[in-house]
């Protein structure tokens, strides 16, 4: 298995999340969170899994989880 990273999977509205659950798991994505209100799934997997997930009907896109940093308590506001 390749390097595991955290991924943000944006669903399209054609299929409900419940239908996709098994297919995401079969594709190799370990789902950490299902954000039902906004149609997003957060999960872990390698690049190969991401490729399979992207091909699923009902998946609008997959992107790497990106960091946010507003700076520490003593730094002047950075955002």
């Amino acid at each position, binding site marked *: 298995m390749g390097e595991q990273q*955290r991924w943000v999977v944006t669903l399209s509205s054609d299929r409900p999340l419940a239908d996709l659950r098994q297919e995401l798991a079969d594709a190799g994505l370990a789902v950490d969170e299902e954000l039902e209100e906004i149609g997003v799934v957060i999960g872990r997997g390698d690049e190969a899994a991401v490729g399979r997930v992207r091909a699923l009907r009902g998946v609008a896109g997959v992107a790497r*989880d990106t960091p946010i940093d507003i700076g520490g308590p003593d730094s002047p506001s950075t955002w």
Partner: protein
Amino acid sequence: MARPPISSGGTGARRGGEGLGASGIDDLLLSAMERGDESLQTGRYIMTYKPDAVEQGLEHLRSLNLRTADARDFEDQAVEVKDVGDADALVFPEIGAALVSGAAFESRGLSVAEDIGSDSPIETIEPEYFAFADDLTGDYLRGFQSAVEAIAADFGGSGKREEQSEVDAQVFGATWGLIVTKAILSSRSGAGIRVAVLDTGVDLTHPDFAGRTFATATFVSQPVQDLHGHGTHCIGTACGPNAPPGFTPRYGIGYQVAPIFVGKVLTNAGSGSTASVLAGMNWAIANKCAVISLSLGANTPVQAAYTAAGQAALNKGCLIVAAAGNSSGGPTGAPANSPTIMSVSSVDKNLSPSSFSSVGKVELAAPGRDVFSAAPMPKRYATMSGTSMATPHVAGCAALWAQTSASLRGQALWNKLLASTLPLPFPPARIGKGLVQAAP
């Protein structure tokens, strides 16, 4: 009500439309704010007469060809300034003083520094100042003392002129941001509106929030208690109290927002990720928060997940507002750059765009320079700058607007915020439609 008799000393030429009744006190206050006049003078003048010299005072006013109204001509001497219409002056015989309009005062060559002769009926001539109500908690003296300091500074008496914003804060009893957004003039409080602030959490022990209802959740494996300060500051601006204790100016807009939804999506070190923010957005939408405020972001292109979250929010009657970022002229970051999320840039006290603010995809601007608000105890308060500080001004104003009508949700609330901005003479890339304004 029948118009009262108004006496005039002669028939000379008159300036039209400048009588005392032409402008109400709110008009005068707004006019002063709009031209950046921080002197607290209304533009009118008060003449105080020597004991028993009121009749001579009246004669003096008439000799200047001023149309003069007399409180005695009104039933029970109950007169409102607006009732005197065209009159240039209004005499209060019981207290031996007269109010004179600015236009009349200046056109007759009068001045506060006028040498008053010993045979003149006038004791003093001074500018009229605005007066502000204070809460019935003994804070009356705060406003009075601070107003005296401001007036003394004006006349060069105190020797040292304080930092302008501090004087404003003391005299108006509110931060500059609440003044220019007109939040302090609003009749609304955010009552019945849910506001979510997704940030570093909040100081749950802060005395200024005693008695407020919080709903909290953490998405970063640390307790919601804010050990950073950023989240507490933003929540202070969006939802802080109407009358902070002691000599503290009011710094919060939606003072009756309840519950205040606090989503910790950034750690106490200020870090997070798209996933933690999305989880917070999901939670806020699931809890039907009409306003969701995000003073955070990353310098990345539009992220599809944020756009989806923003669309879901709008579909469900929620509005997500986010800070454009402090890239000093660089492009708006994510999530603010999503088309379904309202992007907020920052302006300085003089209402020009803050130099640190990002530009480009900006929906509107709000106060972001030297913003005074809450900080975790024991510090209690702090002054910070950033589009992070501008964003909760929009969130607070949005809560006030949402309170005015149940139909102002989601896209309708977005549209109302943009339609009600104060236009500013800068490109839309820097300030969007203009400066956010609170509901009246």
